[in-house]
């Protein structure tokens, strides 16, 4: 795999060292990827973990047993060979002692022949014997007088009998040693046993050199068999673990996938139930749960649909009699001057409440349209500056009445965006109307901002503000901050809900910020091109002049919230950026 990463030296032309470095880096990168992949696999797959642990544990066990068995086999083979050689050595030494004991001095005639004959006899006959056993008779204490002899005749047997062994045996001990040497064409391990042979004129030494080729081969065979069996066992165990884990993990995965699909709304997804085991029970329970959930959800959906339908139907059904009532009330209202003052007052009240009623019906119908999904965006490039002016102009009399001044902060040029102007105007009218209404007589500030991707309008009042948590609640239908509070403008309680739906229709945001005693600010952010996805807003949601509990940011600076020590959040001054990024 790394070979493909070796740079072509003909095209590269760089020194080999560079190539090696690149290769090394490539290998390192490959290794890092491999490690990362393994790590990911380890983290993600239960099967990988189980199989890995099984492999490791069984490798340890099997390896340990394999070592024990192989070691035992080798030692048994060696012990057998040793016992065999020792027996032969003992009988051979006794035989040699008898043979050589017939001589009183080594110079006697036939002594050397007897040495030869003894060695040949002990080696098992003539040189045609191919057992590989070498028998040597050496006289270390009488060198020169007695020629050392081996059978079969070999020249360099001395290289196989180490000086230490010769010294030990010459000192009158029976001793053994395993050594590697070369008598034939290949290196062979020899088990060498030596024994002193007492004679009437001193001592000679008898050595048996037994090749361990067969034992070595047998040990290697046994080792290979044991290792092979062990590896096969480990692989089998791994496969077994994989299989068993797979049996468990597969249904779990199916369950997870089914749950994911369920959560994605595919409520008719079910698990296959096979057999009667635990997993089948799980699947059955899961399916039961899914069925129950589906039934519940469908029931709720049906109820919701019925409710929306009911609202829509009621609104439509109310509109016709209301039109009739309205016409009658308009007639009465036009003639009120002719009634006595109490009735005239009632006619005026009737007119006002009918206005509210009509307004409520309109809002309900609008909401119904949103709920039914009939709301359609009629987007066109629109300059938002006139829209703001128009909204402010329409609410000027209300503002004047409650003594609120409306301050505008608009860009010098036009702010063009692909929006539905009717809906944007309705949203702004709602926001500015609310601000004026809750402004407590303090000025209301409207800011229009834009960048390449989005336009935003913020409406800031300095009224009572919002309690923590109310930023979300205020967009609920018919929600009121203080239900006992007297209504001045007589709003329907659906304005912000409709505004939120309008903003969503534009794939925009409508958000609120507020703090007790510091007023509130609403921000409408819309994409500059219809259908684009918003990532940030050109304006800040939280006003710059807000007092924060921790002393606030530096003069005009931003506040940053980030991770602190011991898992806590720290709040501190942020780098001064012009805009706020939404997470």
């Amino acid at each position, binding site marked *: 795999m790394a070979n493909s990463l070796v740079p072509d030296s003909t095209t590269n032309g760089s020194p080999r060292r560079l190539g090696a470095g690149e290769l090394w880096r490539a290998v390192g990168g490959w290794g890092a990827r491999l490690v990362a992949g393994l790590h990911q696999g380890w983290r993600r797959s239960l099967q990988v973990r189980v199989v890995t642990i099984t492999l*490791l544990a069984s*490798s340890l066990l099997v390896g340990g047993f394999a070592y024990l068995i192989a*070691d035992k086999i*080798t030692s048994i083979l060696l012990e057998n060979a040793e016992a065999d050689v020792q027996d032969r050595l003992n009988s051979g030494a006794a035989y040699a002692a*008898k043979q050589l004991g017939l001589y009183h001095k080594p110079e006697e005639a036939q002594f050397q022949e007897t040495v030869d004959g003894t060695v040949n006899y002990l080696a098992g006959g003539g040189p045609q014997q191919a057992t590989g056993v070498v028998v040597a008779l050496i006289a270390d204490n009488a060198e020169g007088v007695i020629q050392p002899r081996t059978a079969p005749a070999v020249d360099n047997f001395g290289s196989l009998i180490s000086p230490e062994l010769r010294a030990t045996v010459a000192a009158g*001990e029976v001793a053994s*040693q395993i050594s590697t040497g070369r008598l034939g064409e290949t290196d062979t391990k020899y088990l060498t046993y030596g*024994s002193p042979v*007492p004679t009437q004129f001193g001592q000679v030494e008898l050595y048996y050199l037994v090749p361990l080729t067969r034992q070595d081969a047998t040990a290697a065979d046994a080792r290979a068999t044991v290792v092979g069996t062990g590896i096969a066992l480990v692989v089998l165990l791994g496969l077994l673990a994989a299989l068993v884990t797979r049996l468990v993990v597969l249904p779990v995965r199916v369950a997870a996938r089914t749950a994911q699909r369920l959560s994605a709304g595919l409520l008719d997804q079910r698990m296959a139930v096979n057999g009667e085991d635990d997993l089948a029970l799980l699947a059955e329970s899961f399916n039961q749960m899914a069925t129950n959930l589906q039934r519940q959800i469908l029931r709720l959906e049906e109820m919701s649909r019925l409710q929306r339908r009911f609202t829509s139907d009621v609104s439509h059904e109310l509109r016709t009699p209301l039109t009739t009532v309205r016409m009658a009330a308009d007639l009465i209202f036009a003639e009120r001057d002719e009634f006595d003052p109490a009735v005239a007052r009632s006619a005026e009240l009737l007119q006002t409440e009918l206005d509210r009623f009509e307004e409520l019906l309109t809002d309900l119908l609008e909401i119904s349209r949103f709920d039914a999904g009939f709301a359609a965006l009629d987007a066109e490039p629109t300059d938002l500056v006139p829209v703001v002016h128009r909204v402010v102009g329409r609410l000027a009399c209300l503002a004047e009445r409650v003594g609120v001044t409306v301050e505008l902060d608009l860009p010098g040029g036009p702010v063009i965006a692909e929006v539905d102007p009717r809906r944007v105007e309705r949203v702004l009218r709602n926001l500015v109307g609310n601000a004026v209404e809750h402004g407590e007589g303090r000025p209301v500030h409207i800011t229009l901002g834009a960048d390449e991707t989005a336009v935003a309008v913020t409406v800031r009042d300095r009224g009572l503000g919002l309690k923590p948590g109310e930023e979300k609640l205020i967009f609920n239908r018919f929600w009121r901050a203080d239900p006992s509070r007297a209504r001045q403008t007589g709003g329907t309680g659906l304005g912000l809900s409709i505004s939120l739906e309008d903003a969503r229709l534009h794939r925009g945001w409508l958000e609120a910020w507020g703090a007790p005693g510091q007023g509130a600010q609403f921000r409408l952010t819309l994409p500059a091109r219809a259908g684009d996805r918003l990532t940030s807003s050109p304006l800040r949601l939280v006003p710059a002049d807000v007092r924060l509990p921790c002393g606030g940011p530096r003069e005009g600076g931003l506040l940053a919230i980030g991770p602190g020590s011991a898992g806590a959040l720290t709040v501190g001054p942020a780098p001064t950026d012009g805009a706020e990024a939404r997470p």
Partner: protein
Amino acid sequence: MSRQVLAGLLGGVLLVTAAGCGIPGQTEVRVEGPGPAAETGTSSGGRSEPPSRTAADSREEFVDNFLAAAAGEPGGAYDRVSEFVVPEDRARLPRKEGSEVALTVVRLLAEPVIVPGPEEIQVTLTVQQVGQLTADGVLAPPEATPATYEFGLRPYAPEGGDDIEWYVTNPPNVLLLNVEALQEYYKSRTIYYWSSDRLRLVPDQRYLALAVPEDRLVSEVVRWLVGGHSAWLKRAISGLPDGTNLINNATRTDDRWEVNLDMAGADSTRLNLLATQLVWSLPELTGQLELKIRNQSQVTIKDVGEHRRLNPVYRVDTIPQPFCVYEGAIRSLGPTAAPMTTAENHKVLSAGISYSGQRTLAALAVEAGDGRQRLAVEAGSAPLTSFTASQETFQTVGRPVWLRSAHPQQPVGLVAADDRLYRFDEAAKLEPVQLSLGGVTAVAGSLDGHRLAIVSDGELYLAAVSHDGDTLAVGPPRRTHTSLSGLTAVDWYGENSLVVAGSKGGKRVLYEVDVDGSRETKLHVTGAVVTHLAAYPAHPEAPYGIVMYEANDVAYQGFPFERITPDQVRDLAPNDAQTSDPSAPFLLF
């Protein structure tokens, strides 16, 4: 982290498994225990060996020592002799190895003549060639012919000493050995081979150097047995299969000797025969004997002495009965009566009677009238009644002898008549024996029946003979060199010795000689020519031989030799004149 630990452990285990449990290539020396302790030697080594060059105090002694120097184990003969020779002349000595070593055995006919010269002392030896002592202990017929050997002596005075030493210069190109040294430094041994029909053990004489330790005796004898018999016995003997060899030495464990052989076609019969051979060839042997063929135990003899008792070499009476011819009839000199009826017992000149199983074989030389002689033969149970006379008549018929054959139903006798050797059977049918010798005057058969001693033209010859019932085959005769001359009579006096009558130094003497001529022992001075000679040979069950002879018409028997007087003769007939002396004495056994 545990994964690394696990992986490390796994790797370690695999490495150890793969590499750790093979047979190591090299180990330390491991001491298994003390080696076997040396057993104290039971016999002392270094038995008598000839004296060294510097041992002599006189020139005569030095010459004697030189003639004994070759004695000992054959392998060292050259070295021992060359010690005596000045270095520049050593090349004249024959240097041979192993089985080719041969010592020239001579008998000094006179004292060495030592003549001092201006530079060197000249030594002249007058010798009789006796034989060649080969490496396998056989004293073979001589190959060299010189009757004299000459060599020089060079005096040499080593520094710092008063003694004078000598060196031999210009030595003979053979390794000389005096017969006296042969007697002194060798022991004569009798080993046995089976006859060609494997029914009789035939002795073969060997010489073993006394320098050979006793422990090696068994090995040496077995080597002789497997190495083959003396050449002259070829006709009579069946040897061991070719390629038979002793594997290493025969060894003794406590009271048990083990002989390990390499032998083709060995079966228990063959091995039992070999065991009997061995047991008789090693009379010193006691205890057990185990024969192994290529290390496989085949035959075990629990008690060697018992085996000898059950398998005697010879089946002969241990007490021979003396007889003589008196007044033309065979008369007993002992308790046993003559085994024939009186009617047949007349005109007898000499007789040869022996037992063969239950039968008595009798061959008589009888007068045929006109001064002629013929043979009369009868075989059967005693008393013998009807003798068959031979067709042929002769001028002289010697004392007939019966071959002690292993085939009692077809007995064969031999007789020297008119200077020729004849064979005869129980029907008195005579046939001349094909022999390269002329002037045969006497013949004697050994106890084993496979060796003949023949006197031809006053010389002693030995020949092997085989008789399978029908045919009688006599091998080429081998001359035995004795110091006697003019031999007239011969008989066997032991397994390997003969008693001969001849003259030595102008005197008529009886000598005991070995079959190879090496040993000569004077038995008696007879004073007259011995005309009849009969002996009972010593053998393993009868340690002493008996000799009877007739000289000057008077019979004698020993020992000590005394004249046989007529009153010693038993069962005399009433008509016997009792005027002459008993003659032609013989022994019945």
